[in-house]
């Protein structure tokens, strides 16, 4: 345990897996580097594509078993730093695949009936339900800019939806929400990936029909098809989006160059042979990328971490409790307990997801704002030191004498100056008067004394007098202020 705590400070990653076998299997979290089990969350059995990490703070899993409510489904949300108290949501029907937008504002879920749901996470409102497909939904994903939603179904159909039109409150039908229906796949869709590139979004899809297809999302055109010998059950791209890893139903992982078909290169060998990573002996259920390399999970109850460059397994994670169906890679730091968080009040909020949509007009239209990234440093940028600016401004004012304040100041200063001058004058006059009277006294004394005293006494007396006068003069000088 001690060791674990030390590790938690770093930027390491953790692997989260769960199974679809039974609720008792739960979610297991491993340290990606050491392979230690960090956390086990009981009671979870998620359907394929039914586990996700929300804003690196929450785990969301749609439950495969009906639990708690009759006929309805269940989506559980665990705060990663406080996993013992999950939020249990019971939507109208069982939810299969779930997905969240890149910023974690919206969660979408697809039901076996073909219905799809969009919730706003922060206040749990069910914003929209609609019939997306005729068959069961198998996979959902947002486009790179979160403005398009792509759903894949059991019958091989892929549909692209515009989020803006889906969520339009007024819903006047001016903008159709269905963007495209892509129909080329002949069997169930198993994976959808949207590729970054804002101005021409590209989608990669995989299917049980043994193909991966590359689509132009905007035109709804098929760009490339890649055929594999077996059914493809999971796909992932490397972080540089150059290589496509396709996990197959027999446990092999095919590595191939991602060819979006956007570049027509005459010198290119048209079809290159995929490299195969062999390590699993049952079908691949999920693929993900961590900083250390590719992670693959399979129905053979194991997850492997691969060094893609050499094609070796760096680490294997055994999950004896059941086949792994879902897997996500999360930063290990998000497992930090609540007490270590500095500002819990500003944490992203998650509310109970609504079961029914609210009628449009009843709400006040509130939105719970996401916190700003920099919000814990609240006052740093807003207020700075002002006195230099203010002083310069005032100096300018004073020199130009253009503002009332400056004029007032000048005026007051000159009044003060005049008053001081008056005071000084008065004082000097007083002093003068005093001196005069002293002088007169002195002269009088001298006249009087000259008659009856000796010359020596006279002189002495006079000196005393004069020094006293000097002292008095000194003390009576007003201090200049």
């Amino acid at each position, binding site marked *: 345990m001690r060791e674990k705590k030390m590790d938690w400070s770093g930027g390491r990653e953790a692997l989260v897996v769960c199974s679809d076998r039974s609720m008792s299997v739960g979610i297991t979290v491993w340290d990606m580097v050491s392979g230690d089990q960090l956390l086990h969350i009981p009671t979870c059995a998620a359907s394929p594509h039914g586990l996700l990490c929300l804003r690196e703070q929450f785990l969301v899993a749609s439950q495969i078993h009906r639990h708690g409510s009759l006929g309805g489904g269940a989506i559980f949300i665990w705060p990663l730093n406080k996993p013992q108290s999950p939020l249990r949501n019971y939507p109208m029907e069982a939810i299969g695949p779930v997905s969240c937008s890149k910023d974690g504002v919206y969660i979408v879920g697809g039901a076996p009936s073909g219905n799809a749901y969009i919730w706003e996470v922060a206040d749990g409102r069910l914003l929209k339900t609609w019939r997306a497909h005729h068959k069961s939904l198998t996979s959902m994903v947002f486009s790179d800019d979160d*403005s398009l939603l792509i759903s894949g179904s059991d019958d091989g159909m892929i549909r692209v939806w515009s*989020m*803006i039109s889906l969520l*339009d409150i*007024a819903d006047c039908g001016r903008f159709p929400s269905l963007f495209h229906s892509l129909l080329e796949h002949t069997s169930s869709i198993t994976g959808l990936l949207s590729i970054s590139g804002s101005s021409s979004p590209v989608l990669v899809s995989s299917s049980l029909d043994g193909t991966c297809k590359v689509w132009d999302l905007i035109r709804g055109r098929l760009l490339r098809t890649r055929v594999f010998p077996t059914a493809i059950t999971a796909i992932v791209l490397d972080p540089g989006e*150059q290589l496509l890893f396709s996990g197959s139903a027999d446990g092999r992982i095919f590595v191939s160059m991602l060819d979006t078909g956007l570049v027509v290169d005459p010198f290119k060998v048209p079809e290159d042979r995929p490299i195969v990573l062999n390590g699993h002996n049952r079908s691949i259920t999920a693929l993900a990328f961590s900083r250390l390399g590719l992670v693959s999970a399979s129905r053979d109850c194991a997850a492997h971490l691969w060094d893609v460059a*050499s094609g070796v397994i760096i680490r294997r994670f055994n999950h004896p409790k059941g086949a792994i169906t879902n897997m996500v890679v999360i930063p290990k730091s998000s497992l930090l307990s609540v007490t270590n968080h500095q500002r819990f009040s500003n944490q992203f909020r998650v509310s109970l997801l609504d079961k029914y949509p609210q009628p449009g007009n009843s*709400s006040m239209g509130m939105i719970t704002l996401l916190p700003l990234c920099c919000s814990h440093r609240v006052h740093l940028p807003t207020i700075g*030191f002002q*006195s230099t600016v203010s002083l310069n401004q005032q100096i300018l004012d004073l020199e130009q004498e253009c503002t009332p304040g400056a004029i007032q100041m000048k005026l007051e200063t000159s009044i003060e100056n005049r008053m001081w001058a008056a005071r000084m004058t008065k004082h000097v006059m007083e002093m003068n008067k005093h001196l005069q009277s002293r002088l007169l006294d002195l002269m009088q004394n001298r006249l009087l004394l000259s008659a009856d005293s000796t010359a020596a006494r006279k002189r002495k007396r006079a000196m005393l007098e004069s020094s006293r006068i000097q002292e008095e003069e000194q003390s009576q000088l007003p201090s200049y202020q």
Partner: protein
Amino acid sequence: MALFDHFHNVYDVAFKPRLLRTLLKDHVPDQNQPFRSPSDLSIVLSAIKTHRLLSESVTESIDQKHIDKWKTAVDSWVDRLLALVSCNMPDKCWAGTCLLGLTCQECSTDRFLASYSVWFHKLLSHIQPAAESHFVKVASCTSISDLLTRLGSFPNAKKDGTSHAGKLIQPVLKLLNEDGSEAVWEGAVHLLCTIVTFYPSSVQHHYDIVEAAIVSKIMSGKCSVNMLEKLAACLALLPKSRGDEACWFLMMQKVLLSINVNLNEAFQGLEEEAKCNEAIRLLVPPGKDPPPPLGGKKTYGEVLDKAARKSEQLLMSSVTTLMLCCCKMLTTSYPVQVTVPIRPLLALVGRVLVVDGSLSQALLPFVTAIQQEFICSQLPTLHSYVLDLLTAIIKRVRSQLLPHAADIMRLLTVYFRMCALPELRIKVYSVIKILLMSMGIGIAVHLAEEVINNAFADLNPIDQGTGDVSSSANSKASTGALLQTRHRKRKHATTATGSSEEQLDRVNFEKEVPKGYTTFIPVKIAALEALEALLTVGGALRSEHWRLKVDLLLITIATNACKGGWADDERVISLPSDATSTQADFQLAALRALLASLLSPARVRPPYLAQGLELFRRGKQETGTRLAEFCTHALLALEVLIHPRALPLEDFPTVNRKSFDNGANHKYPESMYSGGQDLNTPFSRGPLGMALGVPNPDYDLYDKWLGSDDEIDIPVTDPSKNRNNVDDASEAFRDHQTEKLPSVDGASSPKVAKKIDHRSAATGADMREGGTEEEIMVESHQFPESISQEESTFPAVISASTSTKIEIGKVASDSGALDPGDSEIATGNDVLVAKGDSFAIQGENASTAVSNSERSKGLVSELDNESSMDSFPDIVDADPDSDSE
């Protein structure tokens, strides 16, 4: 101080106290000398800031004597300032106060903490009395504000700071309430903001009074626009003093309600009754109590009465100020998560933007022409503020705005069509730009057409019609002719869209008319920016319809803009007002948009790439301007487009192994070494040689292969030398099959593709040596595949080196029969699949090596068996499939 007591240099610590004393002697007034000139202070200011004369920061190595000297110098500086502050002469007092503020900011931490309390009380004494000069009051406010700001950076002084700040509230409110000059109010408001941000709890008890004071100031109508802005910011900050969610929400609700109530009055007769009722209903749902009015109950009624009596000008200024307050509340951070009444906000935006000054027929008799005239004169300002509010909403709410995005879009498209004033068009363009950037392709789908049509109308150089409409609108709108211009504008917009091809032709052939060009540069810049955003976000969007048109427009504009030479942007820098955009800005905007048009993906190669490059190259010559900076960046960005490169995927095994680069070569021996030494199973030794210097012979081999593609002889002879070993190995192989695989893999843990080749080739060879006819058959199937010769020699040779006599014979005969290159491909292909297996095995081996646990070892060997068995069908399965592809 001795006459020749020189110091070392400008960085010498001894220099600082001397300079400080000189400043004190010559430039800072003292009690007995009259204050000469305020410019003396600026000399002091700059000297202190430049030389950091008050910092008292020294490195350890400094003589204590110098430190003491500096300390006493600063002591006497502070003493002098304190004496000045308590002087009756206003100018000296002012100087002292200002310099004390500077000292708060500049002095050392120890000194500050030791004496801030004394300074605070000195300064406080100047805020309170009414008779002080305004200048002194302002200086005291800013100095105290700086003192509190500095104090705010010490967390442990928080409590003390709060108690100090608490003493300030009453005097500051008094300053605000009395009829002082604007400068004093400004100082007071600034001080208030500082207190709220740094010591929120000190305001908490006075919250209502502060709110009332600020609101009454806003409503008083005595403040300038600048002052109103400051008041709005202060009001927006106020909820921070409580710091909870309810407080923020209540303030927002009050402000919105106040705006709406005021607008009801202003818009009487200009909008339907239902509209204004709806806005208020959204704010205060029926059945709920409305919040207390902004600024407290008493003042509110009073203010309303006053507002009714006073001019409508006042109404407008308070509405715009409150809108500004909304913006600030949205954009400034708040300590907790808050709930935003998004629908009332958007309803307000919609409500204002819909009003265009026209009267509904039913209400015609109730509105006088003067009323209408007044509203129309104020409408542009109002719209401008509301667009700012919309921008703030989009910025802050981000993707949570999605449910309302369609609403906003509808509103904007309608408004855009009728908006004819340049300032407003600029704002609309910028709102659209932000929308595009934040919501991506989803919104670009809907906005593209609108942006393109409007941008064409604004940018088309020869289309004087647009310019005329805009300019006339500009002059007329203030007199209430919005209605008329709207119609004209609309008409124009339809013609513009209708005859876009016609325009295109004109773009092509006619030259730009300079008249009307300079007038609307800011609008054009805004239009270019919006186009740039559209191209960035949705360049591929239905591009066949509009891309050609837009690309042509952008290259034309950029060429024309740059035709008359480059505007020097020096002039812009020297001008104080940054609001005036000039030719240089226009050129920059045009080039930016051009770059976006070149880079944004389209169906075809950018048609104007050559012209664009020419422009950027020319622009790059203008060294030192922003334009040259941008052109350099543009050329860098375009390089990928001009010379497309397929970069090698570093560290990943490429599917086509075409060349063996040196990097791989270097890694190879190391990996060989580490792996080879660990593993002592017979097989691993076999092909690699017997001696301890295991990797060397093989490395040499490898080198030779690399060195010469043709020299097949050498590798072939080499293995034959080792043949005995190989034989031994193959004997051992049968016995140690399970051990063999890990060992081989262990030898190859590094990340080199070639290495994998080699090893897996070995594996493949072993399998063949295991000896079924079928495999050889498979091989021979694959001969016809065409791969270049260099590529293929390598695996083949390896296989030769590691396999038995029979195998070599086989290969030899193959190569005899067919082209040698082709024969070798077979093994190469084999390798592909076999290699996959060995990957897995290798990984397992590595993991056992790390963990050293017996349990997992068992598991590994078990799995190894499985996978090695599996590998046979793999070869057969995979190859025909991939051939058929």
